[in-house]
């Protein structure tokens, strides 16, 4: 009977369309992945083990929902089709029966689960075999790697889901309950995963492991195992059954089995109770004749408004009475309160209203989708599914009344969700100590924009369901549409508009106008859909769409016609406006140019790839900023010098970042177009001889339209630099196509060389950022704003409603400057002859004192260590958070609202981000503004790694040196995570790789400082600045490394080699600790420590080869767990020990070592991928 039941269930399942739809969905998902892979560059081949793991991860969540739907349907089929009495009246064993059904369902779900991964492998194979994919995306086929993600993740997950959902189905007997549970499970999984991610870095190991055990889908295990895989690891490793992972699998197997068995028991009990239930539904006797009663006629018909009110009340009460409504409200509050908030380096951020609104936007996605895919169908199909529609069909109530009552009821659910979430969010804000809660912003963003967007989606949902055959097809169509809108361009992505960012300085800026046009566009379409929706509204159960369509012309009232006509006009008008400005004549940014232009650029100018253009010597600018428009008009008078030893007949003039209107005028020559907007030639009348100068005048005018998304020029907080505003000279190597196939397609020769080779001495006389110039700026802006550029204010005048500011730099400065205009509060201070200013938004006062202090401490430390500060002023200026960085110009540091100002540093032991970032930017006044790097590989290290190192030294001095452990933990995590996504090159030739020149560079410099001593390293760096200042060339990493090597011993030279020339990893592990007998003479215990140590060199793919380790590495005995990087270690003993490859034995003596931790490399000077095994606790009992 068992086999028969399985066979019968399988037959039933495979005779329904659902299983094929699911299979098709999963197969197309993997086909899509393969397609995506084939079209873009990827570090890992499409058939690498890591790709399979990622696919398994991606499919896991989808499968959770699909399994719920599928298992629910199958498990409830007896109930739905009233079959159970037919089945259970037969002599079958219910246990066997249920188990057989679960086996059948699991067979199907298991197969479906494996489908994505298997299909990916197969389609990759097909693509490779028939050369449909380019060869470099396909690696060697290692079929065994397909197995482990299936066996460890997909199949067990499928089993857990199947057992769980089957159990829920047979107990609750409601498809809706199963759907609700699956949603709750998705939420729980997503939250557990997010918490585990936070815990991985922020919390203790035990917390992390607990969360990993509870993670039913095992997503956090995948991350935990694979997060630090290099490109090479991703191709050669697969998931392993680690103890904690095994525990997770076993735990959930037992848990879901228990639930399953419990559910069968409950269902058996339910069945034995069933007869008793029927007793109270006994028929009452009715009289034989009907009482004489008059029938009441209606005296006067009420207004439509009254009908609407009645119907609305009915629908809303119906919604509010459902437990699922309260479930989704609870879910929303839960998500709002418990989803992890963003933080950086473990430092939380102040919960400003805009941040909360962005947070809500993310966490409420699921509840809103639930409304669209679950509640709306419920509401819409209510009459038809209960078959009350048969009665209502011919009631004298108009369609639009029925439609709008339901529409408003659905909107009511959404507004209730938003309202409770906003309340929860305000509570979070109040709890965190925010006093100024911007209720207006909540009303506008959540109550206005968000509700509008959902209303549009509701209109679409109602329309789709109105023309759908049944609830399932309507829901499926909506699901597909919602999914598709995630990938379509904005004009085709229903109810979406380009992202909108709020800034306390400048509100939504110009983008709000763009959003309003988009809202007009989608809003008017939604009105059309709404009208069609209610005209085609299926009131009863049996009317066909064709019938309703035939009624359409009759029902279309004049009012409807006017509405449709008006909406159509608005839709077309708004659509054309968007299309014209954003597609036909799109944004003016160089960053958006297409490959044709890039290729044409290379063709036109490649002859000057290796020619250094004349250098700018003098800059004199005049800029008029009009914040209200906003726009900017500027002129730059430049003086150019031919610094090379050959005459220059022409040079490349690149269009500024925003290709607005610009022109170059000069008596020395003129522009010659090559038919490209991105660049032109400037041809000298007579070739510019070596040592000769030429003057140029550049005029630009920039007035971005609302679709341009230009955040450089805004009403309050304009900030634009010279490369964005003015044209610049010489070959722009960032305009390149790397893909070899595309290169040959465009007829481009050779390989692209984006960054100049470190040994190419031509570029040693070319600076990365800019050469030293004399600078003067004359700025005008509205009278209520302050305009700012590098230099010292030498003239200020207010003329009516315009203000004029003139800045002059007394000494030469790097030709890289900002122009700013803003209205902010300012804090001033003076420190050792330097004027300090911080311009900030009045609401962001939290960290101003810290930043001021950081600026002072930095000036002190750097002046002392690297030489005097070159300017008499230092200014920090907050700018809107549309862009998120801080940048150092000569004596001027624009600082995004999102960085530093917003960090909440009240908690003890928080890593002080504002302090650290300020120090980093101030350090650039030396690294970048005093030391000028040559335009070759490694330049980023000279600028960023040295600034990072300097900043961290200031941080360590201000706080305690242990505070760097917190920084290092995050830096290490970032470095190790990022390096697996691209090819990695050693520090000395690093280029365009943030994780190398920031994180790895800082770690390397700190390790070097530890090895040779901070003061010695600083002296060398000071010497480096001094030497470079008088050098005829700009600085390279080779120069720095040579200088260091001159002054250190051979062992330290080996370290220098490891840090800068190699990609080096250490594997350090405390193998064993033995406490011996107390020495009665000294009163101390001997502690014998065994340390297992290894060193590896990695190639650019991360393939490691072991190298000989022979180095001094710190070993310490500490009282507090090294795991908690936020606390001091409480050192008892710390010393450098010679450590060699293999096992090393070290003897330490201690008075009371019990309960202490032995830790190797406690301050993380070496890059070790697994720091969990770097320490061991000594038992308490002697």
């Amino acid at each position, binding site marked *: 009977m068992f086999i028969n039941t399985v066979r019968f269930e399988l037959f039933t399942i495979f005779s329904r369309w659902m299983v094929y739809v699911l299979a098709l969905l999963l197969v197309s998902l993997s086909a899509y992945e393969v397609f995506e892979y084939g079209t873009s560059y990827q570090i890992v081949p499409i058939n690498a083990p890591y790709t399979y793991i990622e696919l398994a991860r991606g499919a896991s969540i989808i499968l959770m929902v699909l399994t719920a739907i599928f298992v629910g349907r199958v498990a409830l089929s007896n109930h739905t089709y009233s079959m159970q009495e037919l089945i259970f009246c037969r002599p079958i064993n219910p246990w066997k029966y249920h188990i057989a059904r679960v086996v059948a369902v699991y067979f199907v779900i298991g197969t479906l689960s494996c489908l994505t991964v298997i299909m990916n492998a197969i389609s990759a194979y097909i693509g490779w075999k028939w050369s449909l994919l380019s060869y470099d995306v396909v690696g060697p086929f290692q079929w065994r790697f397909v197995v482990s993600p299936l066996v460890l993740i997909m199949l067990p997950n499928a089993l857990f889901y199947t057992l769980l959902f089957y159990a829920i189905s047979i107990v609750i007997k409601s498809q809706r309950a199963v759907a609700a549970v699956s949603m709750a499970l998705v939420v729980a999984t997503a939250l557990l995963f997010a918490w585990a991610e936070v815990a991985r870095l922020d919390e203790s190991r035990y917390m992390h492991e607990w969360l990993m055990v509870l993670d039913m889908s095992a997503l956090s295990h995948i991350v935990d195992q694979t997060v630090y895989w290099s490109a090479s690891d991703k191709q050669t490793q697969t998931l392993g059954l680690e103890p904690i992972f095994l525990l997770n699998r076993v735990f959930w197997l037992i848990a879901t089995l228990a639930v399953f068995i419990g559910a069968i028991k409950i269902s058996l009990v339910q069945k034995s109770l069933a007869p008793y239930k029927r007793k109270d539904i006994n028929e*009452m006797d009715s009289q034989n004749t*009907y009482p004489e009663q008059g029938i009441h*006629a*209606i005296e006067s018909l009420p207004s439509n408004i009254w009908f609407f009110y009645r119907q609305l009340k009915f629908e809303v009460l119906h919604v509010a009475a459902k437990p699922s409504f309260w479930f989704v409200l609870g879910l929303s509050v839960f998500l709002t309160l418990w989803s992890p908030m963003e933080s950086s380096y473990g430092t939380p951020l102040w919960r400003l209203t805009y941040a909360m609104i962005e947070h809500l936007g993310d966490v409420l996605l699921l509840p809103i989708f639930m409304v669209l895919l679950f509640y709306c169908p419920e509401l819409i199909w209510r009459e038809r599914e*209960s078959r009350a529609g048969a*009665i209502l069909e011919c009631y004298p109530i108009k369609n639009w009344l029925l439609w709008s009552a339901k529409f408003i009821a659905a909107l009511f659910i959404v507004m209730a969700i938003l309202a409770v979430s906003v309340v929860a969010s305000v509570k979070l804000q109040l709890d965190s100590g925010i006093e100024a809660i911007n209720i207006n912003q909540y009303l506008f963003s959540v109550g206005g924009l968000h509700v509008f967007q959902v209303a549009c989606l509701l209109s679409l949902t109602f329309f789709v369901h109105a023309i759908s055959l049944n609830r399932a097809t309507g829901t499926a169509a909506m699901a597909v549409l919602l999914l598709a809108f995630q990938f379509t361009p904005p004009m085709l992505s229903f109810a979406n508009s380009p992202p909108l960012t709020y800034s306390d300085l400048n509100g939504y800026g110009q983008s709000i106008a763009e959003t309003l046009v988009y809202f007009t566009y989608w809003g008017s379409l939604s009105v059309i859909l709404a009208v069609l929706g209610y005209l085609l509204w299926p009131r009863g159960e049996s*009317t066909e769409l064709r019938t309703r369509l035939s009624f359409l012309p009759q029902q279309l009232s004049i009012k409807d016609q006017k509405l449709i006509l008006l909406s159509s006009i608005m839709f077309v008008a708004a659509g054309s406006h968007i299309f014209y400005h954003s597609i036909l004549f799109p944004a003016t940014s160089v960053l958006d140019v297409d490959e044709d232009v890039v290729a044409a650029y290379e063709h036109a100018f490649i002859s000057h790839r290796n020619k250094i253009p004349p250098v700018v010597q003098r800059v004199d600018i005049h800029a008029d900023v009009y914040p209200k428009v906003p726009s900017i008009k500027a002129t730059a008078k430049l003086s150019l010098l031919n610094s090379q030893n050959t005459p220059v007949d022409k040079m490349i003039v690149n269009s500024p970042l925003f290709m607005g209107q610009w022109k170059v005028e000069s008596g020395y020559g003129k522009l010659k177009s090559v038919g490209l907007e991105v660049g032109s030639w400037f041809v000298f009348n007579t070739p510019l001889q070596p040592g000769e100068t030429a003057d140029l005048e550049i005029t630009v005018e920039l007035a971005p339209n609302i679709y341009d998304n230009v955040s450089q020029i805004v009403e309050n907080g304009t900030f634009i630099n010279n490369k964005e505003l003015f044209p610049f000279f010489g070959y722009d190597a960032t305009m390149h196509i790397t893909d070899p196939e595309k290169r040959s397609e465009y007829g481009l020769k050779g390989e692209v060389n984006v960054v100049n080779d470190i040994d190419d001495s031509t570029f040693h006389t070319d600076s990365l950022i800019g050469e030293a110039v004399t600078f003067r700026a004359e700025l005008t802006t509205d009278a209520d704003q302050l305009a700012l550029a590098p230099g010292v204010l030498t003239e200020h005048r207010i003329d009516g409603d315009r203000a004029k500011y003139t800045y002059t730099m007394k000494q030469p400065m790097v030709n890289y400057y900002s122009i700013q205009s803003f209205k902010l509060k300012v804090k001033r201070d003076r420190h050792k002859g330097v004027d300090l200013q911080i311009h900030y938004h009045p609401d962001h006062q939290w960290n101003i004192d810290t930043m001021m202090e950081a600026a002072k401490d930095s000036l002190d430390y750097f002046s002392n260590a690297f030489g005097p500060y070159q300017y008499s002023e230092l200014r920090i200026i907050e700018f809107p958070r549309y862009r998120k960085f801080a940048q150092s110009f000569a004596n001027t540091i624009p600082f995004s609202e999102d960085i530093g100002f917003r960090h909440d540093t009240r908690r003890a032991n928080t890593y002080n981000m504002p302090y650290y970032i300020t120090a980093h930017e101030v350090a650039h006044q030396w690294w970048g503004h005093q030391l000028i790097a040559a335009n070759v590989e490694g330049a980023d290290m000279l600028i960023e790694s040295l600034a990072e190192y300097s900043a961290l030294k200031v941080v360590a001095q201000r706080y305690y040196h242990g505070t760097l452990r917190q920084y290092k933990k995050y830096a290490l995590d970032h470095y190790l995570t990022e390096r697996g996504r691209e090819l990695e090159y050693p520090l000395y030739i690093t280029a365009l790789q943030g994780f190398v020149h920031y994180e790895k560079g800082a770690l390397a410099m700190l390790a070097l400082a530890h090895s040779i001593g901070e003061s010695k390293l600083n002296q060398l760096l000071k010497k480096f600045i001094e030497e470079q200042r008088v050098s005829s060339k700009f600085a390279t990493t080779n120069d720095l490394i040579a200088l260091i090597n001159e002054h250190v011993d051979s062992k330290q030279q080996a370290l220098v080699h490891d840090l800068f020339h190699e990609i080096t990893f250490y594997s350090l592990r405390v193998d064993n600790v033995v406490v011996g007998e107390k020495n009665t003479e000294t009163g101390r215990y001997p502690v014998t420590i065994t340390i297992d140590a290894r060193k590896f060199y990695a190639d650019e793919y991360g393939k490691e080869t072991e190298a000989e380790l022979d180095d001094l590495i710190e070993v310490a005995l500490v009282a507090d767990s090294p795991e908690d990087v936020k606390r001091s270690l409480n050192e008892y003993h710390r010393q450098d020990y010679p450590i060699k490859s293999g096992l090393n034995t070290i003897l330490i003596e201690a008075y009371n070592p019990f309960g202490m931790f032995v830790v190797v490399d406690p301050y993380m000077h070496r890059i070790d991928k697994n720091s969990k095994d770097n320490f061991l606790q000594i038992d308490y009992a002697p």
Partner: protein
Amino acid sequence: MLKVCNLSKSYKGSLALNNINLTIKKGMFGLLGPNGAGKSSLMRSIATLQSADSGYIEYDGICVSAHAHEVRRRLGYLPQDFGVYPNISAIRLLDHLAALKGFANKSQRKEAVSSLLIKTNLYEQRKRAVSTFSGGMKQRFGIAQALLGDPDLIIVDEPTAGLDPQERNRFYNLLCELSEDKVVVLSTHIVEDVSELCTECAIMNRGEIVLQGSPANLISSLSGQVWRGVVAKETLSQVEQSYNVISKKRFAGEIIASVVQDEQPEGFLPATVDLEDVYFATLAQAKIQ
């Protein structure tokens, strides 16, 4: 009052209604026909629920398809099969429906609802959810809602299916009482019901009206032509071949066949004609054609 003119309606290629012409006066009108004859389709057309391909329906001078809304105000419709919202009590549901009909005044609505619940003997059960009602009670609820607002056109589509005989009687009593000054259109496939209740009736088959008139006239038109006799099982096929057998019934283990023809067949006796004979004869006639 109610006039159906040249009404045709096809459904997926087959004719559901084929050139229907009817004139219905006040009183009870019965629509007879086998399953799938087009009764429901005709009823739904009258009840404003579907549009015809050609032809029109007029009620009291109002064109039903063009002014559906006006007709709906005067219409009470009891569908063949209907459901109700789960977990809503009879009184609340009827109150809701009354509001949808247009009872805006709360006290009037309350009164109307209560009196209809009393009239249909549901008042005692008014607080129970309609979804838990038995078949008869649910049907009574159905008629209660159809009577909301005192409609003068009442359409009941096979209302007695699933009712016990007692309940069926009660139901018809109520309908008869109502039909005095209203147009009541009743469709059924139980011939007896029509002959007992209706002043006028029509027989439908395959989308066409095949016979129309008052039951008494129809019966008298066939009088003297119907013969009944006991037929042995073995000879049945032979009898069927030689005579126009319109129906066969089993009675106490034997087969009684009814035959329509002018002369008395051998072994058959003259029978009292009832409407059922008319019905069967009409269908048999249609079959031959």
